[in-house]
């Protein structure tokens, strides 16, 4: 029994270990000036998408382009450039595509405002629907004839 439990635990550990390996991000040998810069640069780089392997950020990706961009971000952060400058540098070369969070402009209005519009539309439809339902459930008056029949039925019981 004990050995079985051990085997299961070992199996879980192995699976976790392997998946850890699969998640490993590339390690660079870049030396930051200080830790704050490192933290900041990594955070910024995580918001930038690799143009080649499109579903990875540039920290995560192994591709040479991602490596270049990553290094560029690190160096620019160390050189004291602002986030805006760095983002501008990237988008002027690779377009808005590299931003994971799209900008709000005429091309992306539908993206940003669409959900709100749909929510309002849904709310409106629900509102109309509920109001209609409420009208339909209104109690109907029983006619005199029916009232009489009912009384007779109850009497004869």
């Amino acid at each position, binding site marked *: 029994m004990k050995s079985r439990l051990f085997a299961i635990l070992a199996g879980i550990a192995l699976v976790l270990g392997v998946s850890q390996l699969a998640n490993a991000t590339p390690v660079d040998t870049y030396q930051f000036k200080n830790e704050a810069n490192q933290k900041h640069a990594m955070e910024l780089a995580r918001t930038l998408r690799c*143009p*080649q392997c*499109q579903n990875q950020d540039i920290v995560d990706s192994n591709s*040479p*382009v991602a490596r*270049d*961009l990553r290094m*560029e971000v690190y160096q620019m952060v160390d050189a004291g450039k602002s986030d805006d400058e760095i983002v501008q540098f990237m*988008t*002027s*070369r*690779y*377009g*808005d*595509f590299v931003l994971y969070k799209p900008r709000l402009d005429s091309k992306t209005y539908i993206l940003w405002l669409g959900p709100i519009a749909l929510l309002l539309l849904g709310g409106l439809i629900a509102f109309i629907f509920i109001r209609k339902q409420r009208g339909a459930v209104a109690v109907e008056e029983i006619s005199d004839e029916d009232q009489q029949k009912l009384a007779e039925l109850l009497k004869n019981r």
Partner: protein
Amino acid sequence: MKKLVLFIPLVLFLVLGYFLYAGLYLHPKELDSALEGRPVPDFNLEKLEDPNVKITNHDLKGQVYIMNVWATWCPSCKYEHPYLLKLARQNIVPIYGINYRDEREAAVKELKFKGDPYAMNIYDKDGRLGLDLGVYGAPESFVVDHNGIIRYRYAGPIDMRTWNETIFPIIQKLKQEAVAGKTS
């Protein structure tokens, strides 16, 4: 009014269907180039064949040309290469090569054995020019006008179809612009 309401699901279905159908024909790998309409970035790099000769962006200016990013490690470049040779023989526009993140010897050797379609080859060892051009893979080609402005970027190997349908018409247009620009 009531009958109209019944059509709402159909309309929604059609709208959704349209977008999904259109989505089938999108190519997410093809990105808009941020550089179209902008000048070729400044560079000062060695010539591939001769490290002592420097090439700058000003050396290329003055006519319509193609910049072609290539490397020996890139299989699609090998596929594209014969077509570039053919274009070079037709002598329509000069093709300048940007040898991107490559080894000089391997690149020179390859051109020697397989033919050299390039009017000149720029050796971009560190990919710095590539970065400034927003290159994310090879091959990529840039069509540049006589003022040194990038007018079109094509990612992927040039073949007969893309040449005839897209690139050549653009070049013809730019050449006309160049002629008009010189006479006026």
